[in-house]
């Protein structure tokens, strides 16, 4: 799935400390851009809202918001950790990793 921009946010958790970043596809190394595009494909990101577990949020679990933009198309998902299907995990880990790295670098 092609993307130009991904907006990632992790909120909540016991600490309630927000972790967020905006990822421009252009700014990513070629291999990472490809990896993310493939993960979006593998998990059918467009169909993700329908695959979320219909359950109440668990106390203190993280809440993820991911917005994928390509041209004038925009796909958004917001869900608690436990509501996301397992195949969303690899993507979350990559995005979370990028966000954590940037947070620590911003000085």
């Amino acid at each position, binding site marked *: 799935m092609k993307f130009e921009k991904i907006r990632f*946010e992790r909120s909540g958790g016991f600490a*309630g400390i*927000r972790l967020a970043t905006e990822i421009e596809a252009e700014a990513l190394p070629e291999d990472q851009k490809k990896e993310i595009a493939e993960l979006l494909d593998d998990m059918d990101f467009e169909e993700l*809202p329908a695959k*979320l577990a219909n359950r*109440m949020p668990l106390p203190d679990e993280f809440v993820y918001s991911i917005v994928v933009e390509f041209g004038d198309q925009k796909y958004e998902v*917001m869900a608690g950790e436990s*509501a996301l299907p397992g195949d969303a995990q690899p993507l979350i880990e990559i995005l979370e990793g990028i966000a954590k790295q940037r947070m620590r670098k911003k000085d």
Partner: protein
Amino acid sequence: MTAHLHPINCIVPPHMLEKIATNGTEAQRNLAIETLKASERMRGQRRALMDFSAAAFRVAAAGAGKERIVYDAKNGTSLPGTPVRKEGDPPSSDVAVNEAYDGSGVTYDLFKDIYDRNSIDNNGMRMDSTVHYRKGYDNAFWNGEQMVYGDGDEDLPPAERLFNRFTIAIDIIGHELTHGVTQFEAKLVYSFQPGALNESMSDVFGSLVKQRHLNQTAAEADWIIGAGLLTENVNGVGIRSMKEPGTAYNDPVLGKDPQPGHMKDYVNTVSDNGGVHINSGIPNRAFYITATELGGYAWEKAGQIWYVTLRDKLGTNSQFQDCANLTYAVAADLFGAGSLEQMAVKKGWAEVGINVDGTTPPPEPGGCLESLLRIIGAAPAKK
């Protein structure tokens, strides 16, 4: 009297919010609102909520008293993991295991000795904890059946670590276990104001567990939640301050503690299930003021009032104003109308901008649907 607006039960999990939170077109927003109103969908949510409580009920094997098991997830995700310390076992060589064991023990003791509550469900439910959940997991949570703790940033070089292990602070353990108590009692929905009350109850009893463990009066206590959780690389004393919400940390990497301590600073957001870890600062401070006003040990009078309110009065959709009114009423039941205790409760809430008699409505008295519509610009802002 200002009437409360409870236009709809506040059962709005995040996967519905995602539709609304998009910066979509007017038509998309309207569609989202219609979806939200759809009763079919709401019934589904309620069923999900009931299933959630039922699941916990099933694991609530009645025990005689204090019964604990600590499990090790060995950095994996499957729960509960491998049992490593059972009730009565000698200490482990693993510090996280011992902290989870001891912390749930002193939490049990507070509820049993002071409030005559026999564990999470008041029926001797076994207290299960899992430590070493995942790798680099900066969190702890209650999954409806048990407590779960990550190790913080153990996977990073020491100079880059922001979080220590989540069992390090006894009030975090009390906080998580109290989520279990709330699930069996008020069943406060985990979003917007009911969610922030749910969070605040966990902070209140988490802090009381720590204060009693340290034998501290209200004046002696630090009222910090999660002291010791942040590493020395972070400029902060903990995660939240019940005494001065918004002052627990201010750090170039982590940012600043976002908690308000007064209704005038209430944060409208869809993140964090509607700001449950943010706006909890308001009821947290009301409790702190009440307890300090009364002096002595906070778990004795203020804690008793809050506990009875949680057990007998609050409901799934209770708002801050309801909590203020109900703690005020409970204080009269327990200590008498016009008693010092009741006046302290009144003062506690007044200082965060909520009047118990409802003559001055707080800026944010509405239900969560109303809050939501305001966030996305579909309802006029309140004056």
